């Protein structure tokens, strides 16, 4: 019996060995290294020396960091509009009717489309002179701006792309959540004379709130890491700085990319992602705090 125990344990270690090794080398150790790098200064040829809190001191006074933070958080908060929209459309699609599959596919297409391609297509749609959006606006007499190059509209234009490409993903999760709600609740409510709107607010929404909480946590974490869309829209380096809307678009991860791989200021870049980690932890903690006010666990 005892020998069986030992054999089982050895098999256990053997089964987890490959991934444990891979995670240790490529993920766990790197996190610690990044934390360490954030306290170092990098020379032109890749060597680094301990510089204490210097990177963090620079971080606090860096106007680019401030702008990137404001943009990233604004994008994240505005992007939460995708959640009520997804709940609305999930509610509309949560029934037996013709064409449900097709509608669901349409919503889901952008989710599986390469973000680089998505950003290119939207750049074209947003084009100030030849874009489809401004043409449609001109039909109703509106002279549209150069959306992604205009500091006043750029961030909102970016949020629209983000919502468009993530709504289908949220919708699928909400649909699964709605299908888990027992039909008897609705039947009982119908017998009591509650109409569809009342049922939606009294049954669907409360029972869906844990799902909504989960989706909002995941969306916030994802939005805070925004990179692909902005990278394609603004480019990097000198080309990016030529876009007048760049100060309203630059995100934290884009700043990380720039410092780590364009200017090779890797110690500072490490401090930038440590800041990102801090923001993610804080915003997630805030959401867990707030959930008591609106999430109903059955």
């Amino acid at each position, binding site marked *: 019996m005892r020998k069986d125990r030992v054999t089982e*344990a050895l*098999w256990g270690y053997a*089964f987890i060995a*490959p991934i444990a090794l891979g995670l240790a080398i490529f993920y766990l150790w790197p996190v610690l290294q990044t934390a360490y790098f954030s306290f170092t200064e990098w020379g032109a040829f890749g060597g680094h020396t301990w510089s204490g809190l210097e990177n963090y001191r620079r971080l606090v006074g860096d106007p680019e960091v401030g702008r990137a933070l404001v943009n990233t958080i604004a994008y994240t908060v505005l992007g939460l509009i995708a959640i009520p929209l997804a709940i609305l459309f999930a509610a509309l699609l949560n029934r037996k009717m013709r064409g449900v599959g097709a509608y669901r596919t349409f919503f889901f297409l952008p989710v599986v489309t390469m973000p*680089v391609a998505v950003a290119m297509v939207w750049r074209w749609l947003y084009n100030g002179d030849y874009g489809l959006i401004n043409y449609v606006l001109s039909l109703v007499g509106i002279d549209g701006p150069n959306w992604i190059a205009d500091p006043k509209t750029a961030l909102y234009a970016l949020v629209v792309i983000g919502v468009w490409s993530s709504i289908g993903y949220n919708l699928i999760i909400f649909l699964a959540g709605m299908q888990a709600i027992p039909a008897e609740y*609705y039947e009982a409510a119908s017998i009591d004379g509650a109409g569809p709107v009342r049922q939606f607010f009294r049954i669907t929404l409360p029972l869906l709130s844990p799902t909504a909480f989960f989706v909002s946590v995941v969306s916030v974490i994802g939005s805070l890491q925004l990179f692909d869309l902005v990278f394609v829209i603004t480019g990097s380096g000198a080309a990016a700085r030529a876009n007048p809307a760049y100060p309203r678009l630059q995100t934290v991860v884009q700043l990380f990319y720039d410092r780590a791989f364009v200017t090779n200021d890797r110690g500072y870049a490490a401090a930038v992602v440590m800041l990102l980690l801090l923001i993610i932890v804080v915003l997630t903690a805030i959401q867990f705090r707030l959930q008591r006010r609106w999430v109903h666990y059955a």
Partner: protein
Amino acid sequence: MRERLPRIVLHTVLVAASLVMVTPFVWQILTSLKTLSTATSVPPTLIPDGHWANYGRVFDLLPFGTQFLNTALMAVLRTLGQVLFCSMAAYAFARLRFPGRQVLFGVFLSVLMVPPQLFIIPQYQIMSSLGWLNSLPALIVPGLFSAFGVFLLRQFFLGLPPELEEAARIDGAGPLRIYWSIVLPLARPGLVALAVLVLLWSWNDLFWPLVVNTDPGKMTLSAGLASLQGQYQTDYPVLMAGSLLASVPVIAVFVFLQRQFIQGIAQTGIKG
């Protein structure tokens, strides 16, 4: 909820929303078949002039075939690696008893919580010291492992009925045999869900490929396409053709495996 909402209102709202979702793709396809002057005519012309040469231009501007192959190899090998390594570990965490199991699983989970940007600089250093920058292994190797897959499959394995495994054990089958001949076949839906998600994320991934492989012949499609943006940013018909070619393979996989994709996402609710 059910019958009260008039069908006509319902479908009007859904058709309008579908138009918003689909129009960008339609416009992309139409533009990809226009000459530059047709694409930039004011007011815009709807009907393209069948200018297929834009697709040929994509192949002139980028080593598109090579980048396609790089992307496919990266996506497929990462997927195979994760399905194998994650399912092995998931089986151990779900079914085998060994000292330190809880702690190790906790450590794996902690990787899941860390934003991936924190791995990048040290991973880059490792690739650089191995001389792997601008090579296929750089695209593939770190992505062979993931904590997410272990987590997803462990949940799935825990939901499998243990009776078959018990019976096999009584018949003298060892853990390796049980894992390979019983658990894996039973867990097929879970494995497929993980595979389609990893395939999707790998194909569309930008940051890591962009950073490690800067030589156009070693780039993936996402990075190659992003590089076009800088140089040819006003030749929209060519950009539309390129972005269509790069994104269509995964869209095609999605259309075939739609049910698995949607199940995978509904089960895990986690996006890359």
